């Protein structure tokens, strides 16, 4: 009896943890949009979009990423890091008001989105150093 109930629990936990629907996986609807943006976004006191993007690219290279694509007009960079795991990141840069740029990064680790604040903090810490500017929390 006890054996059966534990077995049931194991199978149940597999379902709960392992099986998201396609819609959930497609839209990642289990994470809060507002919270995610605040984790992934920082504001910098500069309006030089090109220089910021070039610095983002240099920082990604320092972090052992290979750049996949970049677009100045849209203000985006995508890159991949391979190190027995795969991390793919997209960074966007866009103006915020007259004096600031918003930098947002979103990344995935193997098959999972990164929603933990720490990796983003580390990324922005590295970017701050290269920018010689402080990253402000955007909200």
């Amino acid at each position: 009896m006890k054996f059966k109930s534990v077995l049931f629990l194991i199978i149940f936990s597999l379902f709960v943890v392992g099986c998201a629907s396609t819609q959930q996986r497609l839209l990642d609807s289990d994470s809060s949009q507002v919270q995610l943006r605040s984790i992934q976004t920082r504001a910098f006191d500069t309006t030089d979009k090109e220089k910021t993007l070039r610095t983002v690219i240099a920082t990604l290279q320092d972090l052992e990423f290979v750049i996949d694509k970049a677009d100045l007009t849209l203000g985006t960079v995508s890159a991949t890091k391979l190190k027995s795991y795969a991390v793919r990141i997209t960074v966007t840069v866009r103006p915020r008001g007259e004096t600031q740029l918003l930098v947002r990064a979103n990344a995935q680790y193997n098959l999972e989105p990164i929603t933990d604040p720490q990796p983003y903090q580390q990324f922005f810490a590295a970017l701050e150093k290269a920018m010689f500017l402080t990253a402000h929390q955007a909200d």
Partner: protein
Amino acid sequence: MRRFLPLLLIGTLIVIGCRTIPKDALSLSPESFAQRQMQTRKYETKDEAKILAACAGLFQDMGFNLDESETKLGVISASKMRSAVSAGQQVGAALLTILTRTSHPTDKQQKMRVSIITRPVGEHGEYISVRVTFQRIVWNTHNQVTKSESLADPQIYQEFFDKLSKSIFLEAQAI
């Protein structure tokens, strides 16, 4: 046996739920400065487009196909598929197959990727710095990924920049 079941339960949860990112995946490593030096060279010119064109020509020399480029940011990325068969591994797998009577997968093919980034450096932008980074993914005969890694052998970068210098010269001569 039953005592182990709760353990098993927790084990499954950990295995399935916690495929978290390594702590240092997005932080600067102590080697990052040395790597940057190994992967970067400066050329005394203000003509970024000329250097980029030389890089594109060099990628073609090396059999890469260009995937993306953005001249305004000094970015080119390229890739190629190549065989990953190595004689040593083949012999090893053949011996194992004889010994264990089951077939053993060996490395079959690899995707090699490269990106090159140029940027003006120096007080008045009188130099163009070029940084190149390589990585590869290897698949075995069962189509499983066996390696995904950055290529950090200094000799690769040495040879690359030797070739780049040659390419810049050839482009200047329009050959």
